[in-house]
């Protein structure tokens, strides 16, 4: 920095590492001292909640894990909250994954957070979800949109066994489930375009209801489908997850993580305001064109 620089010029040229450290430290603070601010609920979260409330024990829902372990912070809490709601409603659940090879770890995390989901061979008491009867997990299926289309046409053409090697025809839940026609709702949690794939291949062809629990950026791209009546709801990343936790009355990880969002967002906005003040003050003095 030069000698004759004004305070505004100096402010505009702060070393980026100072900014990074400020961000890093400020993100840690809410975890140590939570703020616990109230959360209002978006229309799309309500819409998904209300749609699931119309479902019952005879309905089958696909929960598609299209996010990797690396995106757990944003996607997992919403995925867990919606799964919990489905369990509350007694809806049958099929879990699978077309996008990420590490989905087994995600499924383990979901099971750890929803104790009612009993794994294969585990005894299931009243209120529990018995594996194979109330829920099933198929693991990773490669292939992208082509596979999503193929699953819509004929699930058995893609899947012969579940993740644990049980033939599909021996799984009671799958007895009458052959294609997208037999699925009431597909909830896709994605960091990519899988929400679009399900709308294109499931909703448009078979009329299956589609909802997305995407990363916040996907919310922007998914809203046109919701507005056009092609989707029944959407959760906006961690924010949507916190809203859903509030709706089902089970506060969890999303509610805690939302505090970090308060600080980081405020910091970004303050940075923008300071940078713009610095910019205008410098420009007024003829420093920047």
């Amino acid at each position, binding site marked *: 920095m030069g000698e004759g620089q004004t305070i505004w010029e100096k402010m505009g040229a702060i070393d980026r590492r100072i900014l990074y450290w400020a*961000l890093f430290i400020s993100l840690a603070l809410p975890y140590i001292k939570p703020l616990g601010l109230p959360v209002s609920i978006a229309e799309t979260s309500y819409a998904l909640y209300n749609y699931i409330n119309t479902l019952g024990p005879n309905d089958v829902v696909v929960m598609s894990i299209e996010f990797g372990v690396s995106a*757990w*912070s944003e996607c997992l809490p919403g995925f867990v909250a919606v799964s919990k709601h489905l369990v509350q409603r007694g809806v049958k659940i099929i879990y699978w994954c077309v996008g990420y090879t590490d989905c087994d770890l995600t499924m383990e995390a979901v099971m750890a957070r929803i104790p009612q989901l009993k794994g294969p061979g585990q005894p299931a008491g009243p209120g529990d979800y018995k594996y194979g009867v109330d829920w099933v997990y198929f693991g990773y299926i490669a292939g992208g949109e082509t596979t999503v289309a193929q699953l819509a046409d004929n699930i058995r053409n893609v899947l012969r066994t579940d993740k644990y090697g049980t033939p599909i025809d021996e799984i009671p839940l799958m007895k009458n489930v052959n294609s997208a026609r037999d699925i009431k709702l597909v909830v896709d949690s994605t960091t990519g375009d899988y929400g679009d794939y399900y709308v294109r291949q499931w909703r448009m062809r078979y009329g299956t209801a589609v909802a997305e629990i995407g990363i916040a950026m996907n919310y922007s791209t998914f809203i046109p489908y919701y507005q056009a009546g092609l989707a029944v709801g959407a959760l906006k990343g961690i924010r949507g997850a916190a809203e859903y936790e509030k709706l089902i009355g089970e506060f969890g990880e999303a509610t805690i993580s939302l505090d970090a969002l308060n600080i980081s967002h405020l910091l970004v906005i303050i*940075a923008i305001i300071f940078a*713009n003040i610095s*910019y205008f003050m410098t420009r007024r003095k003829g420093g920047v064109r």
Partner: protein
Amino acid sequence: MSSVLRRPEIFMFIAGVVMGLTLFGYFFNVPQVIDLVTWFQTFATHVSFFAVWLGFLTAARIHIYNIQRRTPGVWYFSIVMFLSCLIPFLAALPEIAKPSIETPIYTWPFNWVYTPLGAALYATTGFYIFSAAYRAFRARSLEATILLVAGCLVMLGNAPIGEVIWNQIPTINDWLQMTGQTPGMRALNITAALGIVYFGLRVAIGAEKRVTTFGAGGG
């Protein structure tokens, strides 16, 4: 013989016929065509399993080259790459017939190396977004101001603190999310789809030669 088999027209024909049948099977209820397209989809899924190996082979060639040539500052990292790939993979190989791979030589690096590294790399953009907000997000023009104001309002709306600052923030955020951004996202959606359809049809009729011939000629 091989010169006949590598003629660009053959690839154009395959791409066009497969695309045509896929579209035909969607819009017309001809069971034979629908069945054929279902088989196509099955084979495509199977080819995608091999695509992972293709990615590995391509990367392996580069890293073998680095090791052979002792490329300064890189070759020993290429060895790290191979070791961190081959040791867990070879350990997992005898267990591929089981429902899940359970050997700790595979699961330990999966849980404690792959997972945190993936998340850390994914999250690095957070730093850049922050410094970009500070350095580049300036109200230099009306366009930049619109972008900036809309962005800040959505940020305030996404964090509960926005509601504490001003109780109308959620209403504004809801409008921006549900209505304000819809024309933009919808126009991008429509124009991108039109682009896909147009490009696909050009491929189908062989007009997009660069694609169907993969650069044409030899190789």
